[in-house]
């Protein structure tokens, strides 16, 4: 028996098609916009978001209400809102599912947020692999415009707001806020170290708010139903709202599940994702995308909300849960992750550009049975340098490595002393056929 919970973001989700504008409106969609536009009180939107403690769902968990408050009352115009639909972190696919389920809640969330900060334009930055979603958004944005929810003088008010869909050329770094702004301006997407923060000087030097798809999609529901209602959705005192958990790996039913914040990890795995596959036992998971640390068996019942994981020394990140079974070699899994980060490093900062390939090569040698005891302190030292890069992606990149060295040190040592991968025979082994020079 699977425990059922209220579906908010997925209330109009169908197995085989997206929800129409009419279906969204019938479920209460665009009511919040009507109310706010009629009332004309911009501060009310921000107040509701802040009171609801809506934390950014893109990985950083920054409170959206506080971010909005950093757009100064006398900040220059035009102001911009950017929706980050670039989810490129391995394991993360929740925004894709959300965009294919009910895109109008994102559109309404963007108009409401645009209204709150008096933005003239919203831009959805989307990765090239999501071309389908980009087309859906273009079509639905046009429908919202026809219905008067977007464009000139929205619902007869003096507020005008447009939404554009911007297709990216790829690369993980584009999901980083400052890099994404550079990408939008046609520049090489290097990150920049603030200050100035984007809400002060972002796109074209103007105040710019950037939020994740899931975060913005929560906004209409909060404005319509109230901050307390949103908080009450969570199972824990420290959580607020629901969370989209994208579950993948060695489970029976990988997929995207909308569950209350604070739902235990064990329940997600055993009930919602259908349990471990036959012959598989839980060994570890990455709880929130590739830049979080491994959660081991000791955390099996941990409540999945931002605060509970933080207290345990972990991060909820994007809520993308990748589950590894007992036959998985954690050195090989970490090597794969480091290979991703090394390849995707934008190359702007030296610690990341030089450090990640160095780390990957050390891990590769360990996995091949060519490791030495001295490699472990070398790995620890190299991962510290990653904190000196400009953007948060660099320290994030070494999170799985730090998890490996904390929770699976014996496994690393076994590779070194036995001069071989102890999992090799089981087939979950090394990336033997991979080029080292990619």
């Amino acid at each position: 028996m699977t425990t059922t919970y209220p579906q908010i973001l997925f209330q109009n989700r169908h197995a085989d098609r997206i929800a129409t504008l009419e279906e969204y409106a019938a479920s209460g969609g665009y009511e919040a916009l009507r109310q706010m536009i009629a009332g004309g009180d911009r501060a009310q939107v921000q107040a509701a978001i802040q009171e609801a403690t809506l934390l950014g769902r893109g990985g950083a968990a920054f409170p959206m209400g506080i971010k909005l408050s950093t757009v100064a009352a006398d900040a220059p115009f035009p102001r911009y809102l950017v929706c980050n639909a670039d989810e490129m972190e391995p394991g993360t696919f929740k925004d894709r599912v959300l965009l294919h389920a009910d895109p109008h809640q994102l559109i309404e969330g963007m108009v409401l947020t645009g209204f709150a900060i008096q933005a003239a334009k919203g831009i959805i930055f989307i990765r090239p692999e999501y071309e389908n979603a980009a087309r859906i958004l273009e079509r639905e944005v046009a429908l919202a415009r026809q219905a008067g929810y977007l464009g000139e003088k929205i619902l007869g008010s003096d507020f005008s707001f447009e939404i554009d869909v911007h297709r990216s050329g790829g690369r993980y770094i584009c999901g980083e806020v400052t890099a994404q702004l550079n990408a939008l301006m046609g520049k090489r997407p290097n990150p920049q170290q603030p200050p100035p923060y984007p809400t002060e000087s972002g796109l074209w030097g103007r105040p710019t708010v950037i939020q994740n798809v899931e975060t913005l999609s929560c906004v209409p529901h909060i404005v319509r139903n109230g901050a307390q209602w949103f908080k009450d959705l969570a199972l824990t005192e420290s959580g607020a709202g629901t969370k989209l958990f994208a579950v993948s790996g060695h489970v029976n039913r990988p997929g995207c599940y909308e569950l209350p914040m604070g739902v235990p990890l064990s329940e997600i795995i055993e009930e919602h994702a259908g349990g471990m596959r036959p012959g598989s036992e839980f060994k570890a998971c990455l709880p929130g995308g590739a830049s979080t640390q491994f959660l081991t068996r000791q955390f099996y019942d941990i409540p999945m909300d931002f605060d509970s994981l933080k207290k345990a020394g972990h991060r909820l990140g994007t809520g993308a849960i990748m589950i590894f079974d007992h036959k998985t070699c954690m050195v090989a899994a970490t090597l794969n992750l480091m290979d991703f980060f090394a390849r995707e490093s934008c190359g702007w900062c030296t610690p990341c550009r030089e450090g990640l390939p160095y780390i990957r090569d050390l891990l590769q040698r360990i996995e091949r049975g060519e490791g030495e005891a001295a490699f472990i302190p070398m790995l620890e030292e190299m991962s510290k340098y990653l904190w000196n890069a400009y953007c948060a992606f660099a320290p994030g990149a070494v999170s799985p490595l730090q998890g490996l060295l904390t929770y699976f040190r014996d496994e690393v040592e076994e590779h070194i002393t036995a001069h071989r991968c102890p999992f090799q025979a089981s087939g979950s082994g090394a990336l033997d056929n991979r080029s080292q020079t990619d």
Partner: protein
Amino acid sequence: MLTEELRTALEAKIAGAAHPQEYVVDVLFALQDHYGHLTDEAVAEAAQLVGMPVVAVEELTTFYPFLYREPVGRYVINVCDSVVCWMDGHESLQNHLMERLGIAMGETTADGLFTLLPVCCIGYCDRAPAILVNKKVYGELTPEKLDDLLETLRREAE
């Protein structure tokens, strides 16, 4: 050479923009569709259209994985090699593709039909192992399903 029609369409798109360079990636994608890949000529034309130095456009063409500076096949197959696909047999899938097509990763078949490229996580981890063919996703793949897919694509190309 750009067709007059495409040039006019791109110019019209850019004309309404406060900052033409925000369209540079869109322009590059359009030119790539037109030429098959981004030739030297295409890069120069894109630079001229959006008013950027050629070197600034080149910074982008060499940075983004979906912009091709060299010729590619009619079908570009991106094989996801990130951690979830890796768990679910990316390696044997990739080996199967290389064997069937007789090429290594990064190469194009002699008949110009297929190019094999690695790609990092494409966001279809619930359907691992997955690949893209000209940006369209195919998931939960097995060697048999791959063979069927290659056959379908070959027939489609005839």
